[in-house]
Every structure is written in C-alpha cells, then in structure tokens.
C-alpha cells in the first residue's frame, strides 16, 4: 500500500556495511567502479530507465529508482520511511564475509516488518553474493550454503505464493550465476569485475515491475470515487497530476 505511480519502480538495497551495495549501484547505473571505499555519501537515489516485458507480454518502459541506505544501516538506524512503497528488495552479502551472509535473514525480516507490504508471502527479493572477483581461497560462503539459505528463506516467506512472480526465469549457470528452485533468485556478482551486475538488475527490474502491477491491480482505492480525485503534489507547482493509486 503505497501511492504508486505507474512504472516508477522503487528498489531498495539492504545488507551489512561494506558488502558493496553502493558499488553495485554505481556499476549498474553509471558503469563505474572506484576502488576507494567510503561509506555512502552524497548519492541520493540512482535512476535508470529500461524497457521490460510486462505481465501481459507487452513492452513497458520503466524507471528504476534504486535507493541506497545512505550509511544509516551502520548502527541499525534506517527509519521506516526508507522502506515505504518498495517494489523489490535486493539483499547483498559479501562472499568473503560469512557474517554478512548470516545477516541476510535479519535484513529480510527487517524489510518485511518495516515495509508493511500487503503481500509479504510473495513480495520479491533478490539475493546478490558480491565480490566474486576475489581469490577463491578468501571466500567464506559456499554455493551450497547460499542455496540452503535461499531454500530456508523461501520456506518462511514465499511459500506457495510464487506463481505470479516466478514466471519463466532461466538463468544460465555460466559466470557463477545460479537460479534456485524457489522464488528468491541468487546471483554471484562482482561490481569491481563487472560480473553479472547488469544481468542481476534486469531480474530485479522484472520482478519489481510484476510487484508494481500486482499492487496496482489490488489497490485498496480502486473503486473509490472520493479518493480518485485526490491530488498528488510534486511541489514544483507545475506538475499537478491526478492520483493513480
């Protein structure tokens, strides 16, 4: 239940500090990577337009709005406002940091608790195991562990409600990407090595669009005359459009 504007898809990225959330966004949106780590500063949210296939098989242009945590995750201080109206949640861990992997479930639960989405059982998540470019000897999380977690997460949140959001995803196993049998796709990525990032976000976008269209179709105000007259204000004074919620 959010005030949705059509085809503007809000994506939020969660995961421990330092797993590469900002780098992944930078790689995907700006095709850039910088070695230097700094806790996220000055990056608002990044937007990217792309063309997608909608539920009916038609083409749809969508704008992805990717929201970074602005470093507020460091001391568990992301407010509820951050989570509002998300269409897809990306959970990131660092393959060289087992703790960041262990925390994924907590991040997923935090998201469901704070976002107050109306369909927690089918809400789309995508998991990224980042920093795949590092030497194998430094990796602390095995593919099997990752798969097991996905099965566990799928059991606790996505049981039996995946039909609408699980249509026809096929991900090839090359470059280490992997599709679980359940509804939460897992991708092994490297923002530094430009590995699988574009591919993963395509899937994120597709799932977000499905969620957005699902929400529009079940909107609580569909048949309400009063509310359809509400005015939505962008505050620049020039853009007064009628509400589409």
């Amino acid at each position, binding site marked *: 239940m959010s005030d949705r504007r059509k085809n503007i898809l809000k994506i939020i990225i969660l995961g421990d500090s330092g797993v590469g959330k900002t780098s992944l966004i930078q790689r995907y949106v700006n095709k850039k990577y910088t070695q230097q780590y700094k806790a996220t500063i*000055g*990056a608002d949210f990044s937007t990217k337009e792309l063309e997608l296939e909608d539920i009916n098989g038609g083409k749809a242009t969508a704008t992805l709005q990717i929201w970074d945590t*602005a470093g*507020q995750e*460091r001391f568990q201080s992301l*407010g509820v*406002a*951050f989570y509002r109206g998300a269409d897809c949640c990306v959970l990131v861990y660092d393959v060289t940091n087992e703790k960041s992997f262990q925390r994924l479930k907590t991040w997923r639960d935090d998201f469901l608790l704070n976002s107050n989405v109306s369909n927690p059982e089918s809400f789309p998540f995508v998991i990224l195991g980042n920093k795949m470019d590092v030497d194998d000897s430094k990796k602390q999380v095995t593919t099997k562990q990752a798969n097991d977690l996905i099965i566990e997460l799928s059991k606790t949140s996505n049981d039996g409600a995946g039909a609408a959001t699980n249509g026809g995803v096929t991900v090839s196993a090359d470059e280490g990407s992997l599709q679980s049998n359940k509804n939460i796709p897992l991708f092994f990525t490297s923002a530094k090595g430009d590995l699988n990032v574009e591919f993963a976000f395509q899937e994120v976008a597709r799932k977000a669009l499905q969620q957005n269209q699902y929400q529009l179709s079940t909107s609580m105000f569909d048949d309400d005359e009063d*509310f359809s007259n509400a005015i939505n204000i962008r505050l620049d004074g020039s853009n007064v459009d009628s*509400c589409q919620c």
Partner: protein
Amino acid sequence: MDSLDGEEFDVIILGTGITECILSGILSSTQNKKILHIDRQDYYGGDTASINLKQLFEKYKKPTEGLDNGKFGRFRDWNVDLIPKLLMSNGELINILISTKVTEYLEFKQISGSYVYHKNGKIYKIPSTEYEAVTSSLLGLFEKNRVKNFLQWVSQYNFEDPKTHQGINWEKNTMEEVYYKFGLGNSSQDFIGHAMALYPTDDYVKLPCKECIERVILYSQSVAKFGPGKSPYLYPLYGLGELPQAFARLSALYGGIYMLNTPVSDIRFNDEGKFESLTIPQGTVKAPMIIADPSYFPEKVESTGKKYIRCICLLNHKVSSTDQKDSLQIILPQNQINRKNDIYIAVLGAEHFVTPKGWNLAIVSTILEDDKAADPLSEIAPALKLLGDIEEKFYEVKEILKPKSDGEGDNVFISKSYDAMSHFESMTEDVKDVYKRVMGEDLVIE
C-alpha cells in the same frame, strides 16, 4: 561492536524531532558539518514521530492484546502523529523542503477542507476567495459583500504601492482599524484572524496590520497553489513522522552518522564550562557543540508557563457536515467558544495512509486555560462534540518548554517544545533561531 571511541565531530545532535533533523540536514548538506545524530528511542521523530497503533496503545498504557487485525485492522496501517501539524502550501517549511530537495523522498496530498466553528454549533468551510465569500452560508447577506471587499483589497494589496492601500497604512494602522474600515462583524473577524491568519489569541488586533495581511495573503496563495476549492494545507503520506526521516536521510547522504536506540551518558564540559564530550555504548565522542531537544537537558530548560492538551481520537465514520471529507482542519476560534485560546482539530484518514480504510483520526489540541481543572477534557468539549461517536481516545497534558539560555555560554543549543499550533510556521522560526545561535548568521533559504 562498531566503535566510535575518540572520534570527533563538528556537531553532535541529540533527538530526532523535526527541528533537529532539519538542522542536521542543512548543516550537513550546505555547511559541510560532520554530524553525529543520536536518539535514545528506536524510532525517528521524538515528539514529532508518527507511531503505529500498537505503539500508541502502549504509550497510553492501554492493553494491546488482540489489537492486530482486530476491529482497528492492521496496526501498522496506522501512522498517528503525536503532534499534528499541517503544512501551508506556500509556507516556509515547503520552501525548506524544496530548497533541500527533500521533496524527493516524500509525497504529499492536499487536506480536503478547511473549516471554522461558529457559536451556533455548526462548522463552515472558510471562504478564502471573493467568490466563496459571496456563496458562503457562514455570512449574512450584507456581510458577504463586506468580506468580499476585504478579500479583494487583500488580494490587490501591494506593500510598495500606496494606491492599493485604500488609506490603510500597514505600519501604523492596526487590524482593528482595518476591520472597522471594512465594517466586518465579530464572526468575520474571527475566521479571518484565527482561521486564515492563524492567530491563536486576539492580541493581534491591536498590532500594526502588516503581519496579519501577510498571513491572509499566505493563506490565499496557499489555497490557490495546488488547485483551489480544497484547503491551503498539505500533509505527507504516512504522517508527519516522514519529515524528520527525510531530513535525516539528507544529512546521512552527506556523511551524517545516525544512531537510534542509543543512550547518552556522562556529558562533560571543559574548564570554561563549554561542552566537550559525551559517552555512548560505542565509546566517548567529542564535538565543539551540541544541539538538543529539551528532553536531553531538563536542567537547562524552563517552562513557558503554558501547557497544552492534545487528544487523539479514533473514529469509524467521517466528521459530519463536511461532505464526507477524509481530511480536514477545523478551527474553533476562542470567541466562538468563550475561551482565550483557539482549539484546533486535524482530521486525517486513509487518503494520507495514516489509517486503514473506513477509519479516521482526529487530533484535538489547545492551550490549557485552567490547569487545575479536574477533567482537562472539559476544555475541549465543544471540539469532541463535533466529532460524534469516538471509538477510542487518548489524551495528554504537557508543558511547553524553552531553553533558559541561548547556548553561547556552554555551546549547548536547545530547541523549544512544539506548541499547540496547527501549522509549522512557529517550528520553522525555531529552526532559524537555533541555526542563528549555532552559526552566528541567518539561515538563508533559496
């Protein structure tokens, strides 16, 4: 634990109410200040938070068993302001929101109606244009024309151009004289002064008319700004608690560090009595100054001598005589109810995502006049009567606090408590005041 021990900041801010968060956002994004922002509670907003129904019941010590998915629906579908205020579409807070681009993180909708109470027991839509004046049932036949003339005069009033003044000197003439000139009766004066210019008492009538004229102009421009026919007010989706969070995000984007759920202890001052350091579980942190809400320094604040009463009412129906509107402001001018202070009612609902569908939230507030009264609710009785059946109500009486000093002596800069007013103009004044005390110069909003 992620340690901050020994770290130095430019400013440490205590409390995440809207005043502190705006200051944090501005100091971080425009003044390049390195900020550590702490709140003892595990949610943003302090007194300006919007809380869910479970938090509300817990706060007022009512049982929460069976609350979720009971008659009130999902408790997270409620976002109840502890201090309801509305944003004037053309007001200063909107200017701050636009200039900081914090609008990116928020969505607003208009409040559908702005009403004023008449001593006959009814409420009327406030006529803000000449056309509305002529058609308003609030006004008698002759009064319609007089109000129309007044509004026409205000709309053409140009402080620079004496030809538009019709003999009224805005520096010398009082508002009382303006009312006399236009022959306006008591009830017209009440809605102009209290429901348009938003004065909480009648003190303004003896003052030069300039400020009141400016306020009426602000009201009219705000009504016109986003499509007339509704109200001059905006309100954010999901409640006012979104505002401090949006400014906190701005601050964080420029490097501000946020720590909720963090107790503060051992606040130390140096030999000159100036703030030096404080301790949190992550270590001892330093800064040359501190900004805080009054709750962090009870010994450094004093009462303004005023208390407000605020009553939160849950309704399962729309307020009557409002054309089934989902969101409203209703002002009960003091004279119409034989009081010295106005009563404000903010009504909000599912349209702004603060209640589940089918419910409304009405928040009544005023300055308490008899603080020895056995039942403080008796002071807001006419307002409660307007609301009809109330499913559940919660009220509190609270003292309005202000800092004892300007903070120059100890570098502890304290904000004021939020007042009973229904709008943000006094809060933005306080933001500017604290900013000036901290930075030694005026806050310029572009």
